[in-house]
């Protein structure tokens, strides 16, 4: 067994990497255990002719489809949305599309403003310095001056180009007089920090061999390792162990051969995402914590939020060159972000205008799964769609509901025999109304832009990119799992820094906000290092 380490981090993804960097900068000893491995950028499939097949198999975002040795299965039978993740150094930033919006000021005050869920114990202003540090570390393409946000610090590179597809949909937004803006994206449009600029190849979601898209294996990790942080891959944590006084004192983990190891630590930090973290806590039972670690309230795993997604796809006569440019992002609209009770629901949504579908995606419908008909009608239907569609994703705010949850499955386990998570999620009435409103407005803007036909997908199944809320933050130990600095109320040297601690979901991609929170927590740990 290795010597006891100062800080042990579980998970090397978006938040774990940020914490490892901040703590190692402060001279604190860090060991991170990651169940996946390093993914060599040259193995990303985009240089190969059959690259799109990999998106459906070994590079699929759903671990149940991918089934790689680093993955663990997830029982999703009781959820209309499948959780997506990637297990590797860099975590799901290997796979993400680089959307980098921040939560908006109102997202931290939903109880005061809208009478729902809970206010956060911190504000946008509290997080702003950490947003800025994180932006510099990840590298953000964007344009200052968006009236949907308080003024932001300069973006690291100019906005991503929007192409013909973007210009077409902008025509619709301009006609209606609605808000839109080029998406803040963690994708470089110019060289920055030793990394190269994006060459607009398209499919960010199967990995960026250029290194323009920020994934933490190429942003935070090289810097953290240079400062002495240690990272062990192929290390799947089975449970967090506790000492007689009820403090976390280390972990038990399996290596790639399944051998069991123990590692002691003064502080344990969980960065295993909104599904992996509650799974690990629930699997860590002891005499002191019979219902799982830090779970005296029974709140661990509860209040799962995903961001329900709906899609509207407009069909246009002209070719849109939609395969050019980062596929997840072109522009964002927050016209319907804030609450307007006249709409019949609270909170709101963002529109994300994504790029076009590739050849297989066109045939099989992409995420919407609405495939082109087979038979005599196939050729004409395919040709009418290929490079003739604009897809708008409606990203709904997600509010915490205790019955939406991650629990342990009674029988399903991973390859090491560790109980697997089971997801239970029901779409709320508020979310349904919100998405329906969004689909109707998306229809408006697509038609205003010239679409001759609009098809919609009311709820996307392969859309659980955002795993949030399952170990919520708060000041009241009876109503939350961690305090405002990510420290478990029940276990004073156990911290959680991933999406689990989010109190509400906002209506934007959460990575930027999760990482800013993680940096804020790491800052606190570093400041108190002497009392470790």
């Amino acid at each position, binding site marked *: 067994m290795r010597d006891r380490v100062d800080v042990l981090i579980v998970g090397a993804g978006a938040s774990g990497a940020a914490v490892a960097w901040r703590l190692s900068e402060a001279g604190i000893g860090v060991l991170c255990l990651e169940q996946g491995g390093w993914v060599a950028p040259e193995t990303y499939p985009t*240089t190969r002719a059959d690259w799109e097949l990999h998106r459906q198999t070994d590079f699929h975002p759903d671990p149940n489809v991918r089934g790689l040795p680093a993955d663990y299965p997830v029982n999703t039978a009781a959820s209309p949305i499948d959780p997506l993740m990637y297990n590797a150094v860099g975590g799901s930033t290997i796979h993400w599309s680089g959307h980098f919006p921040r939560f908006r000021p109102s997202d931290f*005050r939903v109880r005061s403003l809208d009478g729902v869920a809970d206010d956060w114990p911190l504000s946008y202003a509290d997080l702003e310095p950490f947003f800025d540090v994180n932006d510099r570390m990840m590298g953000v393409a964007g344009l200052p001056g968006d009236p949907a946000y308080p003024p932001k610090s300069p973006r690291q590179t100019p906005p991503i*180009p929007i*192409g013909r597809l973007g210009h077409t949909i902008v025509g619709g937004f301009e006609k209606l007089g609605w808000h839109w803006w080029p998406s803040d994206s963690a994708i470089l449009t110019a060289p920055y920090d030793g990394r190269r600029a994006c060459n607009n190849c398209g499919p960010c979601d199967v990995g960026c061999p250029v290194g323009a898209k920020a994934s933490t294996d190429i942003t935070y990790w090289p810097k953290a390792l240079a400062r002495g942080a240690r990272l062990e891959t192929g290390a799947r944590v089975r449970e967090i162990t506790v000492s007689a006084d009820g403090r976390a004192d280390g972990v038990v983990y399996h290596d790639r051969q399944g051998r069991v190891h123990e590692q002691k630590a003064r502080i344990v930090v969980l960065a295993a995402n909104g599904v992996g973290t509650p799974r690990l806590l629930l699997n860590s039972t002891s005499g002191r914590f019979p219902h799982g670690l830090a779970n005296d309230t029974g709140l661990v795993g509860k209040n799962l939020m995903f961001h329900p997604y709906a899609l509207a796809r407009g069909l246009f006569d002209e070719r849109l060159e939609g395969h050019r440019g980062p596929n997840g992002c072109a522009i964002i609209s*927050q016209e319907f972000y804030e609450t307007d009770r006249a709409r019949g629901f609270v909170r709101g949504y963002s529109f994300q205008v994504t790029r076009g579908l590739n*050849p297989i995606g066109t*045939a099989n419908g992409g995420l919407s799964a609405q495939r082109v008909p087979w038979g005599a009608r*196939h050729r004409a239907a395919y040709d009418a769609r290929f490079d003739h569609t604009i897809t708008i994703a409606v990203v709904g705010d997600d509010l915490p509901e205790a019955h939406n949850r991650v629990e342990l499955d009674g029988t399903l386990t991973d390859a090491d025999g560790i109980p697997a998570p089971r997801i239970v999620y029901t779409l709320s009435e508020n979310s349904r109304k919100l998405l329906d409103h969004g689909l109707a407005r998306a229809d408006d803007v697509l038609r205003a832009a010239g679409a001759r036909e609009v098809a919609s997908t009311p709820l996307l199944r392969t859309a659980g990119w955002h795993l949030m809320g399952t170990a919520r933050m708060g000041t009241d130990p009876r109503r939350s799992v961690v305090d405002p600095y990510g420290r478990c109320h029940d276990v004073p040297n156990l911290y959680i820094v991933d999406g689990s601690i989010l109190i509400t979901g906002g209506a934007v991609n959460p990575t930027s906000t999760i990482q800013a929170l993680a940096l804020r927590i790491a800052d606190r740990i570093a400041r108190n290092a002497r009392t470790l």
Partner: protein
Amino acid sequence: MPEIFGPAERELLTVVLDRLVPAGRGFPAAGALGIGAYLEQVAATTPAARRLFVEGLREIAMAGFTALTGDEQDAVLERLERDRPAFFEVLVRQTYSGYYSHPAVLALLGEDRPPQPHGHPLDPFANGLVDRVRRSPFTYRRP
């Protein structure tokens, strides 16, 4: 490559694929293009996939598929789509996947170059496009 299908099944599959994606507008039919070999690879991935394909093809064969007219073949496939949706969805989706990743089809679509290493040229974002929005008042609520 493991052999999953016999000669009769391969021949049948070719005829089926030609009905699913017929030739037209200069594009080849899926069966004639050899997409059956791709499906055989898919069927070989797991025992469950193998069973799905073997049983599905057996059912099509029992309808005397190859001796039917085109319209009658379509009717058999429509019935299969209704009665054996699990098999039929896999059959169609995998046929599309094989077909639309085939070099000959990608060339016809003008997509014969993989995304990397060349990428695509795109004009930089023209900042003036946002002038109207930029002039509008702040839209976020100040809590």
